[in-house]
């Protein structure tokens, strides 16, 4: 038998692996990804479209051209979708890291393991950051698509922008963890255990806080008793001591409204995208400067018009052109998109 002193410390990797498994196996993260992807994608498409049109308009105005920047025109609006998703949905992902363990009682086992409180918090925070990274995949994909299309990406600016979003995600995650730590009951997260037949379902989280909610206390037993009584029907609670009113948890309707709004917004976005015919030209380079730059110029939604004699405008950071500069190349052999008044 080992002496008690040998249990004083434990390796960190199993704890980290456990936290990552927990956050990846939950539904909240994937639901967030599902909702955020169309939002970010639509933002990206719109940003590229508007940026392309602005580039076209800038043909006639060098002053306007100098103010055009892919950072402001494409990257910021694209990551705006991520910002919205992180603000509205990421708390549900982050709060699950702690609230789930509080709700199931696993936290009582976790705090007995030979980890310091700092290590436990650190592991959970790293898990939250990894969740943010996974949630950012749609936005990072959009940036990759922009780069693949030949759009300009300044590494320093882009990293700075991503770092800002990382800090914001960390802030939201930290606030969510703090909220989960001080709240007695877990929030009804999107990952509420609809699949769980046990007494710890999402219904319990709607119960009001009862003093002494720890296992063995009156509040804990009350919840279990109420959950048992309501197991037959998740909508009817026969136990007179239970308060099934949604008002019992003010965050429930708020989060529900937020999700409903987001869903409606997502649906409208999808409808808008599907009703608007995305022409192939959107994904094609409007102009390719054959000798000066391999990069792609601005893109537009208008159908391509063949006009080989028109000037080809390149807005790119290719070696031949500095960023935020528009210049007219003598001729363009490829199909290109002239400006509206050309």
């Amino acid at each position, binding site marked *: 038998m080992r002496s*008690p002193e040998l*249990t004083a410390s*434990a390796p960190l*990797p*199993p704890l980290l692996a456990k936290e990552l498994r927990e956050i990846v196996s939950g539904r909240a993260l994937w639901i967030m990804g599902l909702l955020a992807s169309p939002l970010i994608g639509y933002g990206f498409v719109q940003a590229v479209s508007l940026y392309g049109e602005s580039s076209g308009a800038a043909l006639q105005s060098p002053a306007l051209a100098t103010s055009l920047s892919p950072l402001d025109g494409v990257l910021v609006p694209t990551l705006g979708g991520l910002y919205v998703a992180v603000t509205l949905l990421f708390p549900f992902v982050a709060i699950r890291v702690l609230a789930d363990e509080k709700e199931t*009682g*696993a936290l*009582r086992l976790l705090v007995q393991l030979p980890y310091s409180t700092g290590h436990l918090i650190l592991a959970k925070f790293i898990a939250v950051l990894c969740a943010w990274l996974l949630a950012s995949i749609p936005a990072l994909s959009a940036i990759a698509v922009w780069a693949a299309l030949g759009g300009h990406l300044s590494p320093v600016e882009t990293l700075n922008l991503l770092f800002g979003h990382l800090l914001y995600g960390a802030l939201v995650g930290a606030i969510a963890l703090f909220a989960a730590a001080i709240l007695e009951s877990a929030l009804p997260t999107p990952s509420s255990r609809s699949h*769980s037949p046990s007494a710890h379902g999402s219904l319990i989280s709607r119960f009001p806080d009862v003093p002494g909610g720890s296992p063995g206390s009156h509040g804990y037993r009350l919840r279990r008793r109420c959950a048992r009584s309501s197991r037959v029907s998740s909508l009817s609670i026969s136990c007179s001591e239970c308060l099934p009113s949604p008002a019992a948890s003010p965050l429930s309707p708020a989060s529900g409204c937020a999700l409903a709004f987001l869903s409606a917004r997502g649906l409208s976005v999808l409808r808008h995208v599907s009703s608007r015919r995305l022409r192939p030209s959107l994904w094609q380079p409007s102009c390719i400067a054959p000798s000066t730059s391999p990069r792609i110029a601005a893109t537009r939604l208008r159908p391509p018009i063949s006009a080989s004699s028109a000037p080809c405008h390149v807005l790119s950071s290719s070696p031949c052109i500095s960023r935020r500069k528009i210049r007219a190349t003598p001729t363009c052999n490829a199909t290109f998109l002239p400006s509206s008044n050309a």
Partner: protein
Amino acid sequence: MTASNAVRCIRRVGDAPALLQVEDLTKRYGDQTALADIAFSVVRGEVVGLIGPNGAGKTTLLETIAGLLSVDAGVIRWRGEELPTSRRREAIFYVPDGVRPYRDQYVSIVVSFLADVYRRSEHEVAAVIRLTGLTPVLGKRVHALSKGYGRRLLLALGLLAPHQLVMMDEPFDGFDLRQTRDIVRVLRDEACRGRSLVLAIHQLADAERVCDRFMLLSAGRIGAGGTLDELRAQAKLPSAHLEEIFLALT
């Protein structure tokens, strides 16, 4: 394990020094006193049963000893030295009741998580899985386990902990008669290997099967304590079962 082996373990226990001493433990929730002047000790290789009805304070007592709840008064000693709350987890492992840890994970992953944390060898993990009968459900997710297998999982986690003292809250809840007998055998074997167990039980027949010594808890106070024979003597009921003794002494 045969009955004679169990008796030998108990006799050896009788000579052992106290591993854990609880002195004048008091816990209050506002005006309500949940535990009042609780005092008892546990020696190496002993199975102590905390016996009492629902609301007697069994879980509260275990959680205060484990350091999960603060106490208003009292001292916990480990081998004669005071054990501060921050160091309880180094000496004591507590398996709570009604816990279904990491429900989205597979049983095998939960077991190996604790095994990795405590650096248990594959041989030790395999032995614990075999003892607790978890083999058929290793590929299942925790939320899909039946109540009995959920309890077995908790028991496995408790056995994987290397602590010399393990406290379990309602370890037989969810088991049928045959399963209870199997688990009693597992716990008795652990005690014979030198591990001390403190079990909070409200099923008196089960407690009688597994425990060496009993603490009869009622309304936050220990009404009586000792072996079954000592309790019979205190209750003046020479051939009584624990149920009758409990009713007589509390």
